[in-house]
C-alpha cells in the first residue's frame, strides 16, 4: 500500500491521526507536567492511564450541550466550529513525508497564514456571543494578541521563504537538503516559536483564557462538545505549530535513512510538542501590556532586521 | 485550458458593487456604511483581477494590492472616526451628524 498526495486514503489517515494525536496530547501533557513536577498524573484508567482520554471524551460527549439564553445562538455555535475547521484545513498543506500530504499548494505558507488569521474569529466570536463580561474581555485580549503576533509570525517566515524561493512547503523542505534552515534563520526560528505559542494561546501566553484573572476567558459560557472543540482545537494548534517548525526550520521529514521519513517527522514534531509542554511548566504568565509591548517593540523590529539581513545576504551571494 | 467569459467576471464585480452601493445608500448605521464601502472596494479589486486574467498580466494584481492597502488605511481611519463619533454623540446613526447643513 503506497500513500499518495491527495488520495482519499491519505486524507483520511492524516485527519484521523492529527485528531487522535491532539486528543492524546491531553493525557501526554498531564503526564509530562506531573513528571516535571514530581507527581504521578493520571495513571488509573488503562495502562499508564492511557485510556484517560477515552474517559474524558465519554464525559464530554454525554454532558448537556447548554446554550445560554442571553447568547447570540448563531455565533455561539459557529465559534468552536471555526477553530476546528481552520486548523484542520491548515494541515492540508503540510507535507508529512516525501509523498504524504493532502494537497500540493504553491501558496502553502500564505494559506497557513490566512487560516491562522481566520482563527482569530473563533475566539472573538465566542467571547462576543457569550454576552458575558469576562468572555468579552478574554476575546478582546485574544483579538489583539492574535492580530499582533500574526504579523511577526508572517515576517519571521519570510526569511525561510526568501532562502528557498517558494511559498510551497514541500519545496521549502527540499531546499533544506544541505542545511536545515534553523541555522541561517535562527532569529526567524526563535520569533516563529514565540509567535506560534502566542497564536495558539498556550501558556505562558494564555492571557485570553487566564483562569485566575478572567475565569477562563472566551470559553467561560461553553460546555459539552463545544467546549471540547475549543479544547481539542488548542491541542491541534499545538500540533500544527510543532509540525510547521519542523517543516520550516528542521528539514521536515529528512533524516538518516534507518527510519522512514514519516517517523522522523513525527519525532521532530514530538520534540517541539514536549518543548511547548515544558514551557507551560516552566514560565509564568506575563502581563497583557508586557505581552503587547514585547511583541511590537522587540519582536517586530527584530524580525524586520532579520528579513533585511537575509535579503541582503541573498542578494550579495 | 479552461476559459471563463470575461463578462461573467466583470458582471460579478458589477453586482457586488451595486450591492455595496445599495448598502451605502440604505443603511443608517455608520458601521454598515463602512462595511458596504468595503464591499464596493472589493468589487473594484475583483474587476482588476479579472482584467489581469484577461490579459495574462500581473499588473492587475499589483493594482489589487494597492486597493488592499487603500482599504486598510481607509478602514483604520474610518473606524477611528466611528469610535470618536460614538464617544461624542453616543450613537452610530449618521443622520445625526448633520451639523454641516447649509
Amino acid at each position, binding site marked *: 500500500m503506497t500513500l499518495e498526495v491527495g488520495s482519499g486514503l491519505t486524507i483520511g489517515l492524516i485527519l484521523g491521526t492529527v485528531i487522535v494525536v491532539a486528543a492524546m496530547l491531553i493525557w501526554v501533557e498531564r503526564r509530562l507536567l506531573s513528571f516535571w513536577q514530581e507527581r504521578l498524573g493520571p495513571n488509573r484508567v488503562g495502562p499508564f492511564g492511557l485510556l484517560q482520554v477515552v474517559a474524558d471524551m465519554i464525559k464530554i460527549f454525554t454532558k448537556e450541550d447548554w446554550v445560554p439564553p442571553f447568547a447570540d445562538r448563531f455565533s455561539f455555535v459557529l465559534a468552536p466550529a471555526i477553530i476546528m475547521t481552520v486548523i484542520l484545513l491548515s494541515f492540508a498543506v503540510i507535507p508529512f513525508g516525501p509523498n504524504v500530504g493532502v494537497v500540493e499548494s504553491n501558496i502553502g505558507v500564505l494559506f497557513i497564514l490566512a487560516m491562522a488569521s481566520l482563527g482569530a474569529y473563533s475566539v472573538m466570536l465566542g467571547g462576543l456571543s457569550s454576552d458575558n463580561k469576562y468572555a468579552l474581555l478574554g476575546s478582546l485580549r485574544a483579538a489583539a494578541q492574535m492580530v499582533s503576533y500574526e504579523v511577526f509570525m508572517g515576517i519571521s517566515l519570510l526569511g525561510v521563504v526568501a532562502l528557498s524561493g517558494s511559498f510551497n512547503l514541500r519545496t521549502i523542505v527540499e531546499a533544506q537538503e544541505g542545511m536545515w534552515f534553523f541555522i541561517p534563520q535562527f532569529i526567524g526560528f526563535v520569533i516563529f516559536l514565540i509567535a506560534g505559542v502566542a497564536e495558539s494561546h498556550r501558556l505562558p501566553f494564555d492571557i485570553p483564557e487566564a483562569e485566575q484573572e478572567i475565569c477562563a476567558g472566551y470559553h467561560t459560557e461553553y460546555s459539552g462538545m463545544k467546549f471540547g472543540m475549543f479544547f481539542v482545537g488548542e491541542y491541534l494548534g499545538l500540533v500544527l505549530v510543532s509540525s510547521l517548525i519542523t517543516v520550516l526550520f528542521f528539514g521536515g521529514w529528512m533524516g538518516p535513512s534507518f527510519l522512514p521519513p514519516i517517523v522522523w517527522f513525527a519525532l521532530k514534531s514530538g520534540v517541539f510538542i514536549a518543548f511547548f509542554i515544558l514551557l507551560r511548566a516552566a514560565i509564568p504568565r506575563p502581563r497583557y501590556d508586557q505581552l503587547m509591548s514585547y511583541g511590537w517593540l522587540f519582536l517586530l523590529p527584530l524580525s524586520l532586521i532579520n528579513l533585511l539581513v537575509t535579503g541582503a545576504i541573498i542578494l550579495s551571494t | 485550458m479552461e476559459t471563463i467569459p470575461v463578462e461573467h467576471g466583470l458582471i460579478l464585480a458589477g453586482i457586488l458593487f451595486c450591492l*455595496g452601493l445599495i448598502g451605502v445608500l440604505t443603511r*443608517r448605521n455608520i458601521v454598515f456604511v463602512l462595511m458596504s464601502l468595503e464591499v464596493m472596494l472589493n468589487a473594484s479589486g475583483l474587476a482588476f483581477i479579472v482584467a489581469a486574467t484577461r490579459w495574462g498580466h500581473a499588473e492587475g494584481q499589483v493594482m489589487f494590492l494597492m486597493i488592499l492597502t487603500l482599504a486598510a488605511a481607509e478602514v483604520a481611519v474610518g473606524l477611528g472616526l*466611528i469610535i470618536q463619533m460614538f464617544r461624542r454623540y453616543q450613537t452610530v446613526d449618521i443622520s445625526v451628524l448633520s451639523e454641516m447643513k447649509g
Partner: protein
Amino acid sequence: MITLFYLAGAIAVISTAAVIVQTNIVHALLYLILSLLAVAVVFYVLGAPFAAALEAIVYAGAILVLFLFVIMMLNLGQHTRDQERSWLSARMFVAPGIMSALLLGQFLNVMSQIDQDMTITRVGVMEVSALLFGPYVLAVELASILLLAGLVSAYHLAKK
C-alpha cells in the same frame, strides 16, 4: 474549476446581499467574511493565488477583525438591533434599488456586447513581486506612506 467560479460567485453575491439586509451587526460581519472568502476563491480560480491569499489574510483576516474589534468596543446590545430593524424599512430600498438597477442594467447592456473568453493563466507571486519592486516601487512607497498616515490619524482619532 469553472463550476467553482460560478459557485463561489453565487455565494459571494448571496452573502453580500445578506450583509446589507442584516440587522444583527455581528451576523452581517460574518456574512461579509464569507463573501470575501468567496471572492478569494474566485481570485484563486482566476489564476491569482497571491491575491487570493492576501484577500484572506488582509481583508478577511485583518481588516474585518478590526471591524469586529470596534463592534466589541462599541458594545451594541439588543436595543441597537431593534433600532436597526426600525430603520430598515422596505421603503428605504426603493430609491437606491432603482438606481442600482439602472446602473447594473446599463452595465449588463455594455457587457452583453462583449464576447471574449479569458484563458486562465496562473500568475504567481514572483511576477507580482517583480512588478511591485520594479516598475511600481514608487507606488509601494506611496502605499507605505499612506499606511503610515492612516496609522497616525487612526491613533489620533481614536485617542480620548
